[in-house]
């Protein structure tokens, strides 16, 4: 058998002699998908390896303990114990505030909302924060110094050496940040980072009541102590005090999981590109096999069995699949070097790209396998070519010799089943679990199936178009789309999918941005002040009135936690937090949800806001507590679901150490997208009026300059008060979206390139028939211009079908994403879609005309010669 297979392989090799270039071209459509997978998998492996190597620097310590309030005494006692055992400990306090360039007395240069990180001496214990000029980090603790993001210097028009005011304290800007381990590049989009020494936090007087800050303790442990054992031993203490802990292993685990998820998502796009390439291969192979009918008939005449014929062509497909996959691996390794530029701002580690064997070998295997699988259908279809074909065959060139229906051919049905099983197996192998893998396979099949269906519908519509009384060249071009062996479906599928991905992306982006912009337009307010202390509320009010600016809202904010609650909701899972305690974290399963553990910033008022709607129960009409002594509250619908509370249930709150018992008397729907303070829980005024609180103020300043001056003056007078300019939020979201869509667009590019390659190989596959026909038309009197117009019509139509199919699906996909993920109303962005459509058409026409250029070169004499 070995010898026979060897002989068949030699025959297969000789058989491809005249068509090798064209076949390699069609196999290169596999290469792009393989390249995408190899690039994504290799890059993920690079990142995971880097995370492992740098995990300690990412955390900056062996153990981190943090809370949204100063660490409570029992935790401090625990830290003391660790210190006594030889551990080193330092503090980091993180909060947002307004930074003022220059000094308050000097009038200041400008203001900007920043993220302050106040670092204790020695922090971070691991990893190096790089600065420009170099080495400035070690000088930070030497005095009232600050190291800032360079974007802050640009925003404040300041330089290294200038003064920066944070609250009531002043800092000298020592330098700018170049690299902070563990920070993703996109972090600065939400506000530039400012590092200061922790011991000057008090001097800023910024952390007043109700201010949001994160208090963290970084611990470096001696070799004798194990961070994971420590957190395990103190788990209950931490949970009961709402303190978070993180070890190096936790950091590595959670980052690795995120990277793997990102890799899986991007890999999905690569897998789809590979399968689209596979459909291109099937299509090209079908055209190729139709040319091979005579050769097969001759082989059959000479005694070859059907199985031998199949072997010959399967070996050809395997060889070509291997060639395509090899090319893919080479391209993928190249793309692996590009990915850091595309994804770098989401990745918290410095990545050293390295050749990764496992992704490369699995890409090679997968590409070859896909080549064989997709070739099987067309190859099995011709195994029954009768030897009689040598003597008699249809001369129209369109016959593939395939038996009429694959449904009656067990071998081809089996090949189809193996194909489907392989897709499912690959998805399961790439997913966490069989269920996720099955969902992925279903998703991929649904996406490809929907594009295929859209392509079919559009192609059928085009067929009808060809019957209309157009000019001949147009009609003929349209009819060409429907030409036997033209691979319209494969081309449209690949092109349509690219347009689908790009279109969906464009729609999501424009809808989200539009939503924010329309929020800005519709909102009465465009500037908000937070952390306004009780004694600052009236002066700020006067300051706004003095400038004839409206105070659109003055909202009290009271921080609190859930101390306990009862739930009468049927089938609600048993909560350890119920009955007067929010603690009780034992295992992950029993861990109370975030909704129970989080800190709430609630408000009180006695009327419903315009952005709210009661969906259950009713708003209170009495000012005081009920007979039971419980105050009435209104809970946001989603939160009520998370907590499992219904109207009538009671919740006890811990408001700065004071317990307040409340009863849920209504559930509200809240339009969160509005630019105004919205709350999960609203209390009766009487419940919280005397509680420690801060205020948020809303106003509207139409002039950009006046808005900036107001922010600057407010910071000068109330240095602890933060203000947010709505246009800044728009900018930040736009920046993040642009980064995300760059990454997705990069992956979508693989599908688009696959589409182009399928198109080129489709044109190459039908080249003989195309040249023959255009030469014949020239013989019958067609000019070059007429031939070009026919080809132009054909490719423009192919591009149009592809883009219409893609855009129809993109509209569906965009709607689903906007509706289900972003939960905002959907609107079509005609300009973006038109751009995607135009680009798809242009690409198709340009590729088509370029690939078909030798059609023009042939002289009409060829028609006479070809018999």
């Amino acid at each position, binding site marked *: 058998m070995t010898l026979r297979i060897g002989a068949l392989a030699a025959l297969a090799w000789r058989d491809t002699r005249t068509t090798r270039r064209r076949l390699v071209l069609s196999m290169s459509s596999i290469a792009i998908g393989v390249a995408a997978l190899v690039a994504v998998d290799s890059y993920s492996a690079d990142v995971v390896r880097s995370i492992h190597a740098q995990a300690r620097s990412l955390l900056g310590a062996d153990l981190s303990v943090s809370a949204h309030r100063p660490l409570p005494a029992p935790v401090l006692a625990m830290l003391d114990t660790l210190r006594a055992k030889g551990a080193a400990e330092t503090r980091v306090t993180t909060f947002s505030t307004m930074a003022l360039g220059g000094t308050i007395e000097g009038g200041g240069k400008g203001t900007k909302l920043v993220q302050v990180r106040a670092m204790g001496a020695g922090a971070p214990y691991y990893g190096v924060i790089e600065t420009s000029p170099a080495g400035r980090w070690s000088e930070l603790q030497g005095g009232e110094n600050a190291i800032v993001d360079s974007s802050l210097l640009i925003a404040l028009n300041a330089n290294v050496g200038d003064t920066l005011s944070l609250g009531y304290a002043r800092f000298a800007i020592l330098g700018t940040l170049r690299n902070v381990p563990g920070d993703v590049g996109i972090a600065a989009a939400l506000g530039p980072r400012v590092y200061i020494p922790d011991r000057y936090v008090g001097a800023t007087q910024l952390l007043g009541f109700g201010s949001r800050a994160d208090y963290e303790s970084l611990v470096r442990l001696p070799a004798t102590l194990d961070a994971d054992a420590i957190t395990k031993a103190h788990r209950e203490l931490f949970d009961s005090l709402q303190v978070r802990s993180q070890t190096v292993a936790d950091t590595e685990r959670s980052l690795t999981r995120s990277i793997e998820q990102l890799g899986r998502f991007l890999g999905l796009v690569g897998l789809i590109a590979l399968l689209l390439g596979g459909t291109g291969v099937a299509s090209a192979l079908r055209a190729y096999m139709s040319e091979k009918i005579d050769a097969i008939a001759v082989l059959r005449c000479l005694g070859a069995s059907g199985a031998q014929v199949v072997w010959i062509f399967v070996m050809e497909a395997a060889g070509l699949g291997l060639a395509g996959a090899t090319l893919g691996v080479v391209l993928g390794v190249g793309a692996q070097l590009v990915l850091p530029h595309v994804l770098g701002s989401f990745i918290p580690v410095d990545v050293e790209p390295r050749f990764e064997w496992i992704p490369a070998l699995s890409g090679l295997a997968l590409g070859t396998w896909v080549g064989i699988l997709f070739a099987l259908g067309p190859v099995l279809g011709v195994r029954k070519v009768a030897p009689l074909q040598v003597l008699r065959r*249809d*001369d*129209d*060139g*369109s016959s593939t010799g395939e038996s009429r229906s694959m449904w009656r051919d067990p071998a081809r049905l089996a090949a189809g089943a193996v194909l489907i099983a392989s897709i499912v197996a690959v998805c399961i192998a790439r997913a966490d679990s069989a269920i996720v893998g099955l969902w992925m396979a279903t998703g991929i099949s649904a996406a490809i199936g929907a594009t295929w269906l859209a392509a079919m519908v559009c192609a059928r519509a085009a067929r009808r178009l060809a019957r209309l009384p157009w*000019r*001949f*060249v147009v*009609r*003929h071009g349209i*009819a*060409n789309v*429907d*030409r*036997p062996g033209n691979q319209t479906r494969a081309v449209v599928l690949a092109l349509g999918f690219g347009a689908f991905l790009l279109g969906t992306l464009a729609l999501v982006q424009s809808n989200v941005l539009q939503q924010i912009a329309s929020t800005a337009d519709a909102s009465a307010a465009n500037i908000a002040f937070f952390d306004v202390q009780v004694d600052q509320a009236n002066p700020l009010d006067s300051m706004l009135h003095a400038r004839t600016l409206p105070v659109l809202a003055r909202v009290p904010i009271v921080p609190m936690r859930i101390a306990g609650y009862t739930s009468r909701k049927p089938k609600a899972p048993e909560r350890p937090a119920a009955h007067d305690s929010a603690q009780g974290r034992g295992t992950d399963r029993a861990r109370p949800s975030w909704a129970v553990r989080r800190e709430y910033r609630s408000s009180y008022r006695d009327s419903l806001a315009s952005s709210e709607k009661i969906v259950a129960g009713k708003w209170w009409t009495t000012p005081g507590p009920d007979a039971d002594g419980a105050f009435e509250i209104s809970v946001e619908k989603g939160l009520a679901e998370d907590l499992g509370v219904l109207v009538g249930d009671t919740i006890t709150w811990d408001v700065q150490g004071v317990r307040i018992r409340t009863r849920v008397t209504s559930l509200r729907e809240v339009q969160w997208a509005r630019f105004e303070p919205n709350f999960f829980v609203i209390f009766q005024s009487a419940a919280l009026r005397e509680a420690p609180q801060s205020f948020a103020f809303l106003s509207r300043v139409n002039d950009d300059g006046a808005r900036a001056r107001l922010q600057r003056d407010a910071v000068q007078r109330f240095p602890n008060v933060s203000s947010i300019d709505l246009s800044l939020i728009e900018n930040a979201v736009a920046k993040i979206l642009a980064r995300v869509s760059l990454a997705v667009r990069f992956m979508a590019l693989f599908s688009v390139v696959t589409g182009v390659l399928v198109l080129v190989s489709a044109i190459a596959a039908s080249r003989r028939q195309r040249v023959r*026909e255009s030469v*014949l*038309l*020239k*013989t*019958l*009197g*067609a*000019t*070059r*211009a*007429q031939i070009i117009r026919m080809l132009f019509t054909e490719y423009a139509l192919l591009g149009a079908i592809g883009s219409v199919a893609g855009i129809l699906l993109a509209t569906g996909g965009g709607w689903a994403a906007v509706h289900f993920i972003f939960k905002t109303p959907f609107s079509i962005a005609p300009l973006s879609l038109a751009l995607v459509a135009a680009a798809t058409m242009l690409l198709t026409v340009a590729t088509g005309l370029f690939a078909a250029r030798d059609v023009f070169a042939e*002289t*009409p*004499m060829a*028609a*006479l*010669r*070809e*018999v």
Partner: protein
Amino acid sequence: MLVARDLTKSFPSGDRTITVLRDVSFSIADGDFVAIVGPSGSGKTTLLGLLAGLDTPSAGSVLIDGVDLAALSEDARARLRGEKVGFVFQSFQLIPTLTALENVRVPLDLRGDASAESRAMELLRRVGLADRTHHYPVRLSGGEQQRVAIARAFVNSPRVLFADEPTGNLDHDTGVRIVELLEELNRDAKTTVVIVTHDLELAARARRMIRLSDGAIVEDRVRAA
């Protein structure tokens, strides 16, 4: 009037030059029925290609109605073919994606002639295929396909019709019917017909026979009436 003057055609082959036609000259009167015969490789098809302007000679010239084809661009030659020349091929050369009627219309469609539909129908009736107008080539027999090709060749009322082995792929009886059809159209439409064939029985039906051998005319005789 179709005139060939000192036609020579050479091809480079490796480092040598092969001359396929050598100083061929003749003229064919309007409405004549001429057969060009000769063994394989004698240059028949090359000569036909040059006469129809499908290829350009290495030396010499071809005149159709006094117009020198060498002086025309490729597109101008294509337009001239569209107006004055018809073709019938051995392998029919129908466009597989078009129906019989659509195939016949092509030369007129390319000119934007509004009468294409009625004229094509008339021609299909003449060749006996009025009931097969909407059939695709693959659904027609070889003889029927060749009749569609003849209808197409005559649809633009050409001054000259070139036929390259028009019966080569047909059985004897079908071939005879095809030749009779060509004769009938030649007679009725006064179209000059030039047939290339190695079928001497077919050649004998022509009014004039030009015999080629090794790229040169070795015999040029008119059949006795």
